[in-house]
């Protein structure tokens, strides 16, 4: 399995991240924007795991803490992402109840 170099994982991670970021900027439906943010977080998770597995840093002699730290970070990021999903859907539902539609552009009422 070690045939796949670290750079491939990082490349896929960055590609996913940029896809998500572009989606956030381009799309108008909050639910889709939100999915794009999730995509960005998952890209970061992939990056974390790749860094943890390969432990490329020449600065640490003992690789074991790096392996553990990266995996632990991913679990926490997943938990945080789940909390964000719950809160985000809650906010979207609240807006839906108020206006019976959700669209980011129509939503904007404050200017200045």
């Amino acid at each position, binding site marked *: 399995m070690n045939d796949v170099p670290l750079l491939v994982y990082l490349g896929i991670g960055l590609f996913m991240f940029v896809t998500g970021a572009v989606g956030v900027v381009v799309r108008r439906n909050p639910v889709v924007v939100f999915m794009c943010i999730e995509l960005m977080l998952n890209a970061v998770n992939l990056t974390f795991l790749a860094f943890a597995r390969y432990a490329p*840093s020449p600065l640490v002699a003992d690789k074991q*803490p790096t392996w553990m730290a990266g995996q632990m*970070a991913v679990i926490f990021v997943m938990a945080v992402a789940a909390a964000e999903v719950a809160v985000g859907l809650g906010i979207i539902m609240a807006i839906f109840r108020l206006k019976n539609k959700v669209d980011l552009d129509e939503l904007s009422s404050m200017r200045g």
Partner: protein
Amino acid sequence: MRLNPLHTPPSIDWMVVSPVLAVSVGGVLALLLAMFRPKADNTAVIWTSLLALFGAGYALVAQLPLPEASTFGDMVYRDRLGLIAQLLIVISTAVVILFSEQYLRARRIPFSEFYPLALWSSAGAMMMVSTKSLLMVFIGLEVLSIALYVMAGMAKQSNRSEESAIKYFLLGSFASAWLLLGIAYIFGTTGTLNIEAIAGAAVSDNALVRGPLLFGFSLLLIGLLFKAALAPFHQWTPDVYQGAPINVTAFMATVSKAAAVVTLLRVLNHALPLKDFFIPALTVVAMLTMIVGNIAALAQTDVKRLMGYSSIANAGYLLVAILAHVKSPDQVPVTTTLFFLVAYAATTLGLFAILTLAAKDGKEETSFADLNGLYHREPILAVCLAILSFSLIGVPPLAGFLGKFLIFQDAIVAEQLPLAVVLAITSVISIGYYLKVVRATWVDEPQGEISTRSVLPGGAKFAALACTGIVVLLMILQTPVSKFISGSGQPSAPLSASANAQPDR
């Protein structure tokens, strides 16, 4: 699977985590009480929250003379910077809770979950400032933010509140994704999540270490700049500040800002070898922030939105203080940043406490016209409002002046003349809009029926008077307060030494 001799159950120094524990457990208790409260009576919830905050404050003060320590596998760290910042967060939260209840009633927001959420949010802020682990910074930031998203949208009958919630939520999680990618790359280059390792990796001559490190570090900074509302990452601030309920806005302006600024300070302090890289960039950011914040504020007609721009401008001043410190850490202590934060928090909280007058019959009106004739109805509060506005301008005997003056002095000492000049000029510009608030209170007579309440309830009045008192007295108390913040004269752990400590690798 490998044997892992490291994973013996750690010995935990409960003292170090006790403030965060007190606040978050207090939040759980407050939630339980809120579940079973008698109809529409939040007294017990409020007292539980205040008690938890008081306990946390006591634990923090008790730890001040203790030496630096870390626990939970270096996840939680105790030093004077963190303790003072946590103390500021705890007190700000308590003040916000003091003036919340009557406001929520007037706005008809039947949301007693506000109190637990405020506690958890400030627990997140406390985690953020009391750690050297980047992962904990992220988790603290998210605990702080996720609770704030809910609080921003708690006025469910108000379009603006919901709009502010979704904007804050989408932009906030967007920014934290960038921050997280930055953390991932720093983790990849240093092999650890500890902030202290950044300095070590920064001096490495290996391009494969330095390149990704700079990439990750820039992204980390962007995330923090967003949270502290610094230009060009400030666009969310006015909308969110205007739309959110006033007590939540006050919370954002003080707790969230303090946490972000102190974390930024800590991160920069541990990346001093990257100085040449980030100081020029952040100097531009600081100038831009001060200019944008102050100029855009001139055109505002809504006090809450004005305070949004004001908070952007103040974040710019804070960045000047931070930059002066990281430019020449030996001459400029971090005391100034914290001192300005205290002055800013007191002023802002007082102002928002008075602004809760705007809530009446389930609505709130916060345009300048709604402040007209305040001196007829509440002469004392009108005086307070004037004093607080003058403090934000920087009129001499008040706290705001002292804070700005110290920052100005620091910038000169650190040889950052351009920043000092921009600071002075934009402060003069700020007279233009803060005086509008004073004018609306004192000069303009009300047209037609007044849409705000005429009497401020007790808790808010107390908060407003106390904050004004601090703002007035801070100048006289400068020496003891600075001493308290910097910890000089204490047997151990003076602030400047701890914040500048270089990692020994």
